[in-house]
């Protein structure tokens, strides 16, 4: 079963890459771009048929490795 995870920076944490992307987009005449936050996307193939169990495993992985909860939030989608 494939579980998808999105890791993003928490609100309020400086995201210099997102800022640089936003400024570049503005410079390319996408003037209505007000903010960009960059994140990470994971596709995790888990050997597990029960979706609930698979997601709970991935939740544990997020807490222990995939996200650093000091600055990042994660979402299992």
């Amino acid at each position, binding site marked *: 079963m494939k579980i998808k995870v999105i890791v993003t920076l928490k609100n309020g*944490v*400086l995201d*210099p*890459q997102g800022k*640089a992307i936003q400024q570049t987009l503005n410079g390319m005449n996408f003037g209505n771009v007000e903010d960009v936050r960059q994140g990470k996307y994971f596709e995790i193939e888990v050997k597990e048929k029960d979706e609930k169990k698979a997601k709970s495993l991935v939740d544990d992985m997020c807490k222990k*490795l*995939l996200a*650093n909860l*000091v*600055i990042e939030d994660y979402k299992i989608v």
Partner: protein
Amino acid sequence: MRSSVIIFPGSNCDRDMDVALKKFGFKNQMVWHNDQSIPKSDLIVLPGGFSYGDYLRCGSIASKSKIIKSVIDFANSGGLVLGICNGFQILTETGLLNGILQQNKFLNFICSNVFVKVKDKENKYFKNLKKNLLELHIAHNEGNYFCSDDELKSLEDNSQIAVTYCGADGTENESTNPNGALKNIAGIFNKNKNVLGMMPHPERMIDKYLSGEDGSLFFKNILDNFK
């Protein structure tokens, strides 16, 4: 004083550290990350470099390697653990130190000499150090220290801020902050001050003809405090 330098795939300051430690009289040995245990040591050093290519987050993969459990046990039993640059990043990822090192504020890799101010001398690293300002070298892309407001307050309350970036005259402000680090923080301790993580490289400042000698003071001081 016996020391061990841990080598991870992608470490690249491990041999510099070995040279520096031996120069001042440490009995140093190199330890591979896949080993289960660390030989008897008084100091463990996690060196600089790009362990695991900085994949996922700097230091995150190394912080889960086999040897780390022994490092954590050693730290929790009061042993001295020093993390330089990538070693500092690994220590934050293990949870031995608070916070995280984010990408530099202006997205640039910084390679330059900096001055740091020693903020606390009630510890085995800086006790009796004659100087308050040290000229050291930094080379990093992720040195922008960050932690939550609560963690910062606790670092300040317990005097866990070890060194901060400053000018040659000791001025600490935005212009003397190379990477955007919170409160100009260049290095911090854990609560018991036996674990020290810092971005600057003392091992690159041990030869007056090549660089400078403030790193020599740092290493000699650790030895003197151990005697």
